[in-house]
């Protein structure tokens, strides 16, 4: 009898600790995100309080910061620059990464796995170590302060990911598909571009979104390549605004605009990765 009581209290004690842990963790995870949204909706009196504690919710919530961004030239330009850089790096890294992944999966000659590991582990090379040599090299080729330069640097970071994701996608596609096409007289190139690629598209779309986000977020290369020019991507603009006028509500509003697409797409990609890209390809 007493033992039973003891065991119940023990279970509920671990339950309580576990529940408290969950609540605490959720609070810690949400705190900075909440603060970001709160500050972006803050009016001046809720940021500059003249010695009063900062309110947990703005006194007069307002969207004036976002209205201000719509007419802020540097923000609009930076948003477009970020878009261009991200799209260009998607194009570059998919164009060179996808065929390579197909080659690594379909053609087994000796040393191919070593090559695959080598290509993917390029990503482990510290970016802060490679940034000065890259900038010094790019200066010579007029690639500093240009969209193309930043996109090239970003595709250097993202191509290993593309190869990794695309290898997974191509491994899921049965070999019968290309073999049957080749038996029917299609060339290797034709069976890759017209038969395998269409089936692989959903998986590659996930890779594309991933690369886009990586470029959209990236700070180090963008900062070093654009530090003294007219161009800025959004993360670089954030740093510039911070060093000019650290207005907390303006910083938060730019942060929200930078984060929202990332939050949305991160969850989309997660769902995408789980749906089989090859359902119904081979009957």
């Amino acid at each position: 009898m007493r033992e039973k009581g003891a065991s119940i209290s023990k279970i509920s004690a671990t339950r309580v600790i576990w529940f408290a842990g969950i609540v605490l963790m959720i609070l810690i995870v949400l705190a900075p995100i909440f603060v970001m949204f709160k500050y972006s909706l803050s009016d001046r009196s809720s940021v500059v309080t003249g010695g009063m504690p900062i309110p947990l919710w703005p006194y007069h919530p307002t969207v004036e910061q976002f209205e201000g961004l719509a007419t802020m030239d540097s923000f609009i330009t930076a948003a477009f620059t970020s878009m261009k850089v991200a799209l260009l790096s998607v194009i570059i890294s998919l164009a060179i990464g996808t065929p390579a992944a197909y080659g690594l999966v379909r053609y087994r000659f000796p040393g191919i796995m070593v090559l695959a590991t080598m290509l993917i582990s390029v990503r482990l090379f510290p970016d802060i170590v490679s940034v000065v040599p890259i900038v010094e090299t790019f200066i010579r080729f007029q690639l500093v302060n240009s969209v193309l330069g930043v996109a090239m640097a970003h595709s250097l970071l993202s191509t290993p990911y593309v190869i990794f994701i695309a290898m997974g996608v191509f491994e899921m596609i049965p070999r019968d598909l290309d073999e049957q096409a080749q038996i029917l007289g299609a060339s290797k190139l034709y069976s890759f571009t017209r038969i395998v690629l269409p089936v692989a598209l959903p998986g590659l779309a996930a890779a594309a979104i991933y690369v886009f986000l990586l470029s959209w977020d990236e700070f180090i290369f963008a900062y070093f390549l654009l530090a003294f020019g007219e161009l800025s991507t959004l993360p670089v603009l954030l740093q510039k605004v911070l060093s000019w006028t650290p207005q907390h509500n303006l910083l938060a509003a730019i942060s929200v605009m930078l984060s929202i697409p990332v939050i949305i797409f991160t969850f989309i990609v997660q769902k995408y990765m789980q749906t089989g890209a090859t359902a119904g390809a081979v009957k």
Partner: protein
Amino acid sequence: MTRIIVFTRKNLFSIIILAPAVLYLVGFLLIILFKVVALALTRVGPQGDLFPTAYHFVELSRNPEFRHALVRTIWFTLIGTPLELVIGMAAAFLVVREFKGGGITRSLFILPLAIPAIVTAIMLYIIFDFPGGHVNDILMGRYSFFPFQVISHPVDWRGSGFFALMVSILGKVWRDMPISMLIILAGLQAITKDQHEAAKTLGANAYQTFFRITFPLLTPAMSTVLVLRSIEVWKEFIFPFILAGSYPLLATLIERAYHEWRNPNEACAIALVLLVLIIISTIFIFHVLKWLRRRLVRV
């Protein structure tokens, strides 16, 4: 020779589709390595360039700023890496069991990954502001939900090396928590129910089950976290750059050498030191873990 030609002809298509990526990635990697070493070993002088020379390394070893940055970086990694593992493990243990709303909780825990690092750094800049930021207000007991006065005067978080780097570590650990969590979670889910059942049948209590079953079986996942995260913490740039500008680590000192001192050669020398440190530490961690695993898991 003919064999090479035959091989090439047979595999022409695969060589052609592999070439761009190999050339791009390996080519750039070789350029980077060559340039880092070349710049670090060159002294640009009025009478022309001197190569090879250890001048920059000798200069750095005399430079107090470099020494401070080196010590800070070592502390930063020593504190940051275990924290990444512990917090990631805690999160994984919290969500591993099935419960109502588990899926949503897991998604919530992945949220930090979806916030750009620069945004997280700037949010911490705002939260830990001086004199009037949220953290100072909370610790001074100025909110009704936490009426305890921990400090009597606001703390200047960015004005002390210790606090500034602690806040940077906090940001880094917050942002990377999901990665560590997912790796540990995969390790936890790989442990089958049978193994726990067997332990129970043999009369093990909860602690014994944890230390004899769960912990040893988790060592591969924990090793992965430690090796990968330690590399990440060594080279951390964004958080210290935004939050601890006056207290550079090696990574942020590279930026300072390049932009403020206008000295690419010195920047590359620092980068080379950092690279060597990362390689040594990775090999070291790898071997220590191997030795530990042999001691822990007696199959």
